[in-house]
């Protein structure tokens, strides 16, 4: 995430990147899908990942190995090559100097606006006014602001297939641009403004449907739903009920947040915020990740962040919670967000939240077993033994990459058996060693930390028993990772899993490292093993996995699990790409020439930097989205943010999409047949003010007068984050 709260990726201690979704490596169950074998060979199905419950095993309808593809050449037979070729004509950058306020896609493709902030998505919603006069109650029925990660859940339908014309599009609304959210910005801040801001955060559930060729949101769908910063949630897993999870309880209404006089029991909480990227499960639920939750908390009095003052003050320091926050002002009118009033409040955020979009009455669940940090995204992998791994990065400079392994196996034949398997398992953190090997370090009571002390004997995690120790390890995940000596990374963003296609059988994960201005700069320092280092305050030296000093352009690292098992405790790794600008005039340092090693032809034609979103489609192609800002400074030759398509077997990279002005590209998903793609466009016109909201962009109205259904008028008046829907004019698969 960037935008008004994050002037650039390096200014604040708490900035972070963001984006959306990830793809999956599904387990294969040949028994379940034996009927498909008439058209798809068993080996091809295994390779493609197989079919899972509930509708997102796109692989089944993927034109797979050796299949004839409409409008495409014969697929490569190279091991691990995508099953669909990357044959689109790449586009050039949208340079700031000559830029257009348009989302641009290659020749032969059409992009339309699917939904934008303020559009009604819940029954009873009203059309966006254009002047931001909507109330909080109206915002609760409308698409949230600043769209981010998303996933398309197709409906199961005839013949054991999944629909490519109807499903649920579930997306995050990460944060708000307060100057644009309200007619007069944050002036005269009231509880009404806070409520609207809170309602513009969270998760959007929409029914997406293609009618007569045009995609649109079903405005009266019974599935239309918003989950926001005040929605009641259940807390589950090892940390549920712990004393640090018990907060003051409140009655929340439109006009006030009133203390009930009691405390929660630590098994429920209210709301989710800063939902950056996401994930999903093979049993058909959505996972929303709480990233920069710290910025919503503040206080009207001094917040003690002394490392020795209290458990919470130490946590505030490590997670960067302070009196000012990001300037949302919620704490001024809503005591739930004042940490000197509701001191445990922040501990109920920083989790992965599971949502069942198919059940309109489902209660979101915070799964504490996956740890508490600034989750960027979460990517699942089911291996050949049906073991389930969940991979997630902590998007902060110098923070870590994690893996959760469920105790129970994934059951593709009975969804009920999977419902709570995210509550029991082992959380690991990654150590990347020189020599291209790595170790997954378990974060359990018996784990030995630096100095030979088990975590259960570390005062940070001391408890009455191991159950309490584990609860504290999970609530203070960053501090546990500090203790065991995890590798400090260059801001881990999205993680994607490479599909096992064309004979590729490894469990291979890719993670974007968006940048790190503190790497190899300043006086060298590291995160202290006692967990006392303030977030993003260290200046680590370069290391094998983070080899560039002043890493302004970022890159992508990847690792392979040993034994092709998600239960592996060791892995091998390499740096897939270092991003950069082949035309840079920046002065090189000893480890960084700022040019990168992107494989493109001609050289420099697909330069990109600050990679953030990373997602594999089911055909084995990797899509990378950027969060670099407004195309100035170190990114002047790269232009506005963009999305590139990458062949993981050759590293060949082509630019597929460029954003409108001052917008980040974040969030991408596809229909099962690969013929429809949704892409998120976040914070266009980021420099807009309350007095002049369209000072730098009026997107999407700068591009269209109607939404994608070809009927609904598009009101001007504000730049609006939104989701575009992309189709190929000849009806072919996206990217061909």
């Amino acid at each position, binding site marked *: 995430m960037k935008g008004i709260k994050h002037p650039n990726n390096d200014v604040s201690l708490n900035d972070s990147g963001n984006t959306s979704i990830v793809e999956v490596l599904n387990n294969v169950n040949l028994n*379940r899908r034996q009927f498909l074998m008439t058209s798809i060979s068993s080996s091809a199905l295994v390779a493609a990942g197989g079919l899972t*419950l*509930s509708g997102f095993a796109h692989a089944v309808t993927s034109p797979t190995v050796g299949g004839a593809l409409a409008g495409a050449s014969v697929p490569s037979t190279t091991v691990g090559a995508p099953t669909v070729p990357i044959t689109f004509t790449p586009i050039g950058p949208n340079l700031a100097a000559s830029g257009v306020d348009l989302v641009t896609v290659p020749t032969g493709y059409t992009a339309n606006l699917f939904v934008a902030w303020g559009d009604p998505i819940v029954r009873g919603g009203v059309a966006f006014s254009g002047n931001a006069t909507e109330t909080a109650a109206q915002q609760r029925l409308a698409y949230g602001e600043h769209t981010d990660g998303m996933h398309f859940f197709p*409906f*199961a339908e005839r013949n054991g297939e999944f629909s490519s014309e109807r499903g649920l599009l579930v997306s995050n609304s990460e944060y708000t641009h307060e100057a644009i959210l309200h007619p007069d910005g944050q002036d005269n801040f009231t509880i009404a403004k806070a409520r609207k801001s809170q309602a513009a955060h969270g998760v959007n559930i929409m029914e997406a449907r293609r009618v007569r060729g045009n995609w649109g949101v079903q405005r009266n769908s019974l599935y239309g739903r918003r989950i926001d910063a005040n929605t009641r949630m259940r807390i589950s897993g090892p940390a549920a009920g712990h004393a640090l999870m018990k907060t003051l309880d409140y009655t929340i209404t439109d006009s006030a947040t009133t203390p009930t006089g009691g405390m929660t029991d630590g098994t429920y909480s209210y709301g989710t915020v800063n939902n950056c990227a996401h994930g999903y499960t093979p049993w058909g639920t959505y996972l929303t990740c709480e990233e920069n939750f710290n910025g919503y908390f503040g206080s009207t009095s001094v917040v003690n962040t002394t490392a020795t003052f209290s458990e919470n003050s130490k946590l505030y320091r490590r997670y960067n919670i302070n009196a000012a926050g990001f300037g949302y002002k919620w704490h001024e009118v809503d005591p739930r967000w004042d940490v000197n009033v509701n001191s445990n409040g922040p501990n109920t955020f920083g989790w992965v939240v599971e949502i069942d979009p198919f*059940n309109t009455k489902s209660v979101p669940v915070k799964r504490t077993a996956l740890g508490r940090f600034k989750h960027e995204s979460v990517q699942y992998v089911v291996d050949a033994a049906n073991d389930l791994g969940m991979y997630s990065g902590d998007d902060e400079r110098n923070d870590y990459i994690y893996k959760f392994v469920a105790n129970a196996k994934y059951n*593709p*034949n009975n969804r009920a058996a999977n419902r709570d398997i995210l509550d029991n398992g082992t959380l690991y953190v990654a150590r990347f060693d020189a020599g291209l090997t790595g170790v997954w370090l378990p974060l359990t009571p018996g784990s030995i930390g630096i100095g030979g002390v088990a975590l259960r004997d570390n005062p940070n995690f001391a408890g009455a028993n191991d159950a309490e120790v584990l609860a504290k390890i999970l609530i203070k995940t960053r501090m546990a990772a500090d203790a065991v000596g995890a590798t400090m990374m260059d801001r881990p963003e999205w993680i994607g899993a490479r599909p096992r296609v064309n004979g590729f059988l490894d469990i291979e994960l890719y993670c974007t490292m968006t940048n790190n201005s503190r790497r190899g700069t300043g006086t060298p320092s590291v995160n202290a093993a006692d967990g006392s280092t303030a977030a993003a305050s260290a200046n680590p030296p370069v290391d094998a996995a983070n080899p560039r000093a002043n890493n302004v352009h970022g890159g992508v690292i990847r690792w392979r699990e040993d034994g092709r098992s998600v239960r592996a405790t060791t892995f091998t790794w390499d740096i897939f790409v270092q991003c950069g600008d082949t035309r840079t005039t920046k002065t090189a340092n000893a480890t960084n020439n700022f040019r990168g090693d992107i494989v493109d032809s001609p050289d420099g034609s697909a330069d990109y930097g600050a990679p953030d979103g990373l997602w594999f489609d089911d055909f084995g192609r990797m899509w990378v989205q950027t969060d670099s800002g407004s195309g100035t400074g170190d990114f002047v030759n790269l232009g506005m943010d963009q999305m590139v398509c990458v062949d993981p077997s050759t590293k060949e990279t082509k630019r597929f999409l460029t954003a409108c002005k001052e917008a980040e590209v974040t969030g991408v998903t596809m229909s099962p047949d690969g013929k429809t793609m949704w892409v998120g466009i976040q914070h266009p016109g980021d420099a807009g003010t309350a007095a002049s909201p369209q000072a730098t962009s009026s997107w999407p109205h700068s591009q269209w007068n109607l939404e994608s259904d070809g009927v609904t008028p598009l009101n001007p008046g504000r730049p609006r984050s939104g989701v575009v829907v992309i189709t190929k004019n000849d009806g072919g698969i996206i990217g061909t």
Partner: protein
Amino acid sequence: MKFKTLTLAALIALSVNAEAAQIQSASATFTGTLTDFNTFDGYVLPQNNVTSLDLGNGISMTSSEFSTVGQNAFGLDQNGLWTTEGNSNRDGNFVSTDFTGIGRITFNFNAAMQNVGIFANQSQIFGVNNSLQLFAFDINGNVLESFTSSIDTDVDGYDEGKFVGFARSTADIYGFALENVSSNNGSFVADNLLVSSVPEPESYAMLLVGLGAIGAVARRRRAK
């Protein structure tokens, strides 16, 4: 007049029942033991060594190809969508089929049933008139009777369908099956299986009321 119409309708329904008849109705036509499938959640049948799934109440289920017991969403093309939301006819999870050819789901009963029915719908694609065939079986698996039913509901609708089944003159049904007639695109959904082994007390009461009403009408006519 209205009263007369209603009671005659009830009497006609009972008379049809007495002759052993098919049921095709907007909603359930009798009361009995209900199986709503809400205790299942995405259970694939058959699986591993399970070919017959115990549904409780002496009822088991088989599926000739893969079905999902406890399905939570299913698209029916031109017939709309089934969801967990439901309505007075059904709600929560249901059964969906993944059939690629002609397939059948069968409910087997430990005891003889007189009335059996289920709320169902099927995939309908534009220009094709798919239909379901329903079967009632005796204790030996022989067909007691069968009929074909085509279900047509709103393309924009949710959770619509038809209650289909059999009402016999005696309790002799040991099996009840639904099968898609067409070999392609014939997937269907079903929920709220209803069975009764004896005529419901309500039915007797309705019969008495109906007879009484007819008597009253006859008396009035005579009075005229």
